[in-house]
């Protein structure tokens, strides 16, 4: 009857790390936060200051593979990420913090394979050895969202809020790769996650429940078939809007680009939704008192400041 039991959770993603004790973490910003979503990078660094943690950027880290390099070679993402983890180890850090759902999922998948298979670790180290590096398998990949909840704690976060969100109705949008597949992520239920809802509530906002929150934003097929990607955005944002959302929050810059960019194109089929899409650290940093003009909200195509003025969060 074992087939009827829920699947085992392989990795304990909640255990306290050395990095958490030191309040000093390896930081992997990912490509998009350094290119078209610089406001995400900046607001993350401002949030780290507000939280009193140090994010040490792994400046020589490469792209995680973005789920796309797997299409060309089955080993490349694993070895690229082993190189990144070795950089964190060299700094004495055992946590690599991400700010993108796709980075999270693919870096965790690579790490899982490296830690579970001596063959894969051996293959990676044989290549890293060519330039005098090795990965010892001591690193864990976590998203900033999980750090907020496990290391800072929701109670502490609540206490640090100086600008509560006044019941702003915020729809969480997780981004596939921070929750699925569960065998890789497993930090919370992929079918019924509530970490973003918990953070929204801690900031004084009202989380909006809707089926679209765990669905796909379509980012990865924007260049393949733009209208399909836009429709996926429209479908999800319609659901959020119909459930009363005034804004969206996402831990993923790829979802941000899709939701912020394509609602206008999806309007013909799904009606106008115009929901501004906050990056997770933007809204947390705002509630913690970081000056609004430093959060890059003016970079969004759907300006979130409109609803913030309406709800008297800013003047």
């Amino acid at each position: 009857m074992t087939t009827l039991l829920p699947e085992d959770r392989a990795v304990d993603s909640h255990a306290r790390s050395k990095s958490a004790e030191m309040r000093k973490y390896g930081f992997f910003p990912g490509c998009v936060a350094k290119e078209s979503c610089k406001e995400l990078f900046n607001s993350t660094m401002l949030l780290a200051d507000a939280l009193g943690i140090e994010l040490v950027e792994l400046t020589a880290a490469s792209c995680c593979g973005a789920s796309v390099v797997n299409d060309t070679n089955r080993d490349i993402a694993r070895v690229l990420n082993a190189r990144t983890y070795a950089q964190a180890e060299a700094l004495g850090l055992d946590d690599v913090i991400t700010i993108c759902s796709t980075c999270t999922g693919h870096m965790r998948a690579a790490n899982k394979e490296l830690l579970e298979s001596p063959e894969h670790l051996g293959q990676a180290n044989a290549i890293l050895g060519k330039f005098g590096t090795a990965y010892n398998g001591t690193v864990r990949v976590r998203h900033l969202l999980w750090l907020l909840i496990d290391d800072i704690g929701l109670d502490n976060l609540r206490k640090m809020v100086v600008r509560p969100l006044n019941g702003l109705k915020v729809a969480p949008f997780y981004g596939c790769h921070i929750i699925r597949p569960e065998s890789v992520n497993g930090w919370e239920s992929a079918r019924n996650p509530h970490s973003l809802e918990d953070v929204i509530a801690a900031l004084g906002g009202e989380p909006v429940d809707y089926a679209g929150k765990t669905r796909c934003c379509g980012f990865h097929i924007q260049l393949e078939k733009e209208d399909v990607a836009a429709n996926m955005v429209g479908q999800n944002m319609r659901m959020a809007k119909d459930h009363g959302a005034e804004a969206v929050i996402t831990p993923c810059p790829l979802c941000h680009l899709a939701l912020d960019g394509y609602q206008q194109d999806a309007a013909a089929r799904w009606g106008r939704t115009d929901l501004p899409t906050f990056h997770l650290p933007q809204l947390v940093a705002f509630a913690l008192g970081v000056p609004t003009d430093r959060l890059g909200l003016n970079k969004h195509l759907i300006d979130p400041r409109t609803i913030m003025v309406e709800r008297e969060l800013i003047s």
Partner: protein
Amino acid sequence: MAEIKLDVFRYDEGVDAVPHRDLVTVDLPETTTVLDALEAAKAQVDGSISFRRSCRSAICGSCAMNINGVTALACKTPCNTVTNENGAISVDPMPNFQPMKDLVVHMDPFWDKYTRLKPYLQPADRDADHDRERRVSPEDMKKLVAVANCIMCATCYALCPVVSVDPAFAGPAAIAYAYRFIEDVRDGRRDQRIAQISEDYLWLCAHCYACSYCPKHVDPHDRIVDVKRAAIKDRVMMNERGPRHALVVSKTIKQTGMLAETEVILGTVGRFNIVGLLKTAPLGLRMAAKGKMPPPFVKPIPKVDEVRTIFESLEVPVS
């Protein structure tokens, strides 16, 4: 024994303008499967409740349905794991399909996509005389075992967000089943099969892993990636955007260590594809107006030579 309340979607396409719901209560052990609870409801309460079922043990693939909003096999789902906050279990037909009657849906679009695969072995020398069987080594067979477990229950198809907005997409099950023949050493139509499934939008998979809930652990997503790799290896339909995208992403990472967004857009859409580029222009202009454009060139990361060494060691194709 426990009181199991089923909140059942009721609809008859020939009769009802709109669906309604019935709450049906049966007394059964709480570990009873949802399928057995439905069987009891049909036998004891309302014989008109319709649903597909046959084997009752996750082999026939008939009883996939939405249970409290989650697509799953009713025969593999114990009632006590799914009771909702109202103390009931809601059962609905699978999404991405037209309902026919109650939990029974029209499966035709799903089967059509299978039929297009010609899902049977077609050896290159099938007309030649054979005095012995075609043999497959254990290593070659190992690649096919997971996909051979597919029971065509359509759970993955129902969960696929791309299917929900574009019914032309082959869907996870059909692509995984294409893999089953593409990687079968006995088959002689490997490249034709890759071309066929490419035409049926192989590259439209959004990598969302919604299909990771396969009740038989076929992992359709990983098989989709396997087929894409086969397409690149055999260089089938390489002028499509999908393979161009995969290769240009790999290329920019090899060159700079980063995924260079501008270069990826140009390389995928086509640098000289004026019409294609004009189509992406409105969003680009909106982003530019907000100062939200990716830089035209990306500065290589420190020690980018290491990244190039990795690409070369693994012989990763980049063009």
